[in-house]
């Protein structure tokens, strides 16, 4: 079991309340996923040449006391570019005006225990072990702003309970995926992708789906075509919720083994595994509530 939540606000004024509206959604899915939680939030993109990375220090010796400012200083010294850093305990968001591969290579060399959670111009990502309420409080989820987000509460079945195996998973830039279910052919997908130079960071089945879909997008498929290939190649049980800088997308396996409910008003589109995570939303009593059909694609534009 796991819980997924997604929220996309249509009314610009609600962007300021994105996190506040979402926290009860995430906490509402605690029974479905008490061991880890995470979310990816999409906001206004950085300038064309800039990138940001979300980095996790919980696996280093210093943990939440990691010297992020020192890291930013060293990066500036070695790469000759200014690095902005925004710190939330064992998470930090580093922004810079240089190719992200250079920064990531430097971090891998000098701080191999730092874990890069996401890369892009729009995405910030937080995930950790703990109950959804603990994780939400740890990173101040209620203060997050943006146009849309994708969240997850985990009850692990396919790989260990560790921060890097929590969801969302990311691949490439500005793409993330959360998963409720279990895949039966993640190793086959992995064996197909690895010879193409695609590197995996965990043994988690969801990572295979994430990297497969991002690979299709990078090969030029539009989101709908990539999802169609996902239906053809990914075997198992899944409700997937995906985020890109301007879209939220949802698919369910042909057997609809894992649940999902959507509530839509003029102000927002909210998605959760179960209605109890949507019940607190403003105007919910007049929202259009429906259950997404199996093997259909649902894509909402931010």
């Amino acid at each position: 079991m796991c819980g997924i939540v997604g929220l996309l606000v249509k009314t610009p004024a609600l962007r300021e309340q994105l996190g506040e509206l979402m926290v009860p959604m995430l906490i509402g899915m605690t029974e479905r996923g008490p061991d880890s939680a995470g979310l990816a939030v999409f906001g206004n993109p950085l300038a064309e040449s800039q990138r940001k990375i979300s980095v996790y220090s919980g696996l280093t010796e210093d943990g939440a006391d990691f010297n992020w400012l020192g890291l930013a200083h060293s990066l500036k010294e070695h790469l000759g570019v200014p690095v902005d850093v925004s710190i939330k305990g064992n998470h930090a968001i580093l922004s810079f005006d240089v190719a992200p591969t250079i920064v990531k290579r430097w971090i891998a060399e000098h701080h191999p225990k730092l874990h890069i959670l996401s890369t892009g111009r729009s995405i910030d990502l937080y995930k950790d072990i703990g109950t959804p309420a603990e994780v939400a409080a740890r990173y101040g989820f209620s203060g997050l702003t943006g146009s849309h987000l994708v969240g997850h509460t985990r009850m692990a079945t396919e790989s260990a309970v560790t921060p890097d195996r929590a969801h969302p998973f990311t691949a490439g830039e500005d793409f993330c995926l959360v998963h409720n279910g279990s895949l039966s052919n993640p190793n086959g997908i992995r064996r197909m992708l690895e010879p193409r130079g695609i590197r995996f960071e965990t043994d988690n089945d969801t990572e295979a789906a994430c990297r497969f879909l991002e690979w299709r997008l990078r090969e030029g498929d539009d989101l709908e075509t990539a999802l169609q290939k996902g239906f053809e190649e990914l075997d198992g049980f899944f409700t997937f919720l995906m985020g890109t800088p301007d879209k939220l997308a949802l698919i369910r396996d042909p057997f609809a083994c894992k649940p999902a409910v959507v509530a839509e008003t003029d102000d927002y589109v909210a998605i959760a595994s179960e209605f109890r995570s949507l019940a607190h939303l403003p105007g919910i009593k007049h929202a259009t509530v429906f259950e997404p059909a199996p093997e259909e694609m649902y894509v909402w534009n931010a």
Partner: protein
Amino acid sequence: MERLTFDLATTPLRELNTFLHNDAKDGKPRHVTVLNPDGAHNIAVGLDCPVQVEVVGHAGYYAGGMNKSATVTITGSAGTGVAENMMSGKVHVKGFASNGAGASAHGGLLVIDGDAGLRCGISLKGGDIVVGGSVGSFSAFMAQAGRMVICGDAGDALGDSLYEAVLYVKGKVKSLGADAQYEEMSDADIAAVASLLDQAGLDHDPKAFRRIASKRSLYHWNADANQEY
């Protein structure tokens, strides 16, 4: 009739269910309104007295499950397994129902005004189900007894491995499951559909329905079938 209200925004669900299991069994006619269900699981499960329960809003999993004698109405949608293993009485969902609605119901009537998800009426054992909308794939899988009336369409593998339950469908059927077949509608079938539609409060022409029942070719092992049915 005594009328009571439980507001689940302020009252624990256990208090409601405890009342329905104990106090409500004194034989007095009662109507219980449940406010702010907010998708909670197990609302009004295991009732065994003729109480009327109206859930105003969306119910979570297993609402009205194992129902006996009671009448449970849900004004919104119902999650997985609504009226699962119902013995008697009536469960009425005015919105849509998720997967496994009426699974293994032994008796009673489940009415879903909207659509039902996958595996509606799976392993039905004698209950009746009337769906105003469409049903998802694998509905009535291994249904042993009882009747299903589907006013909309059906997904894949309708009535797969059907035993003696009988299905009536008005709309399109994406595919029939193994061992299910269309059969002629007799006068008794038309009367049965008319009666069930009437009990469900749905207005359709009973003659517009098709009957689906078991071919009974899976009842006995056939070594020559080579796993093809």
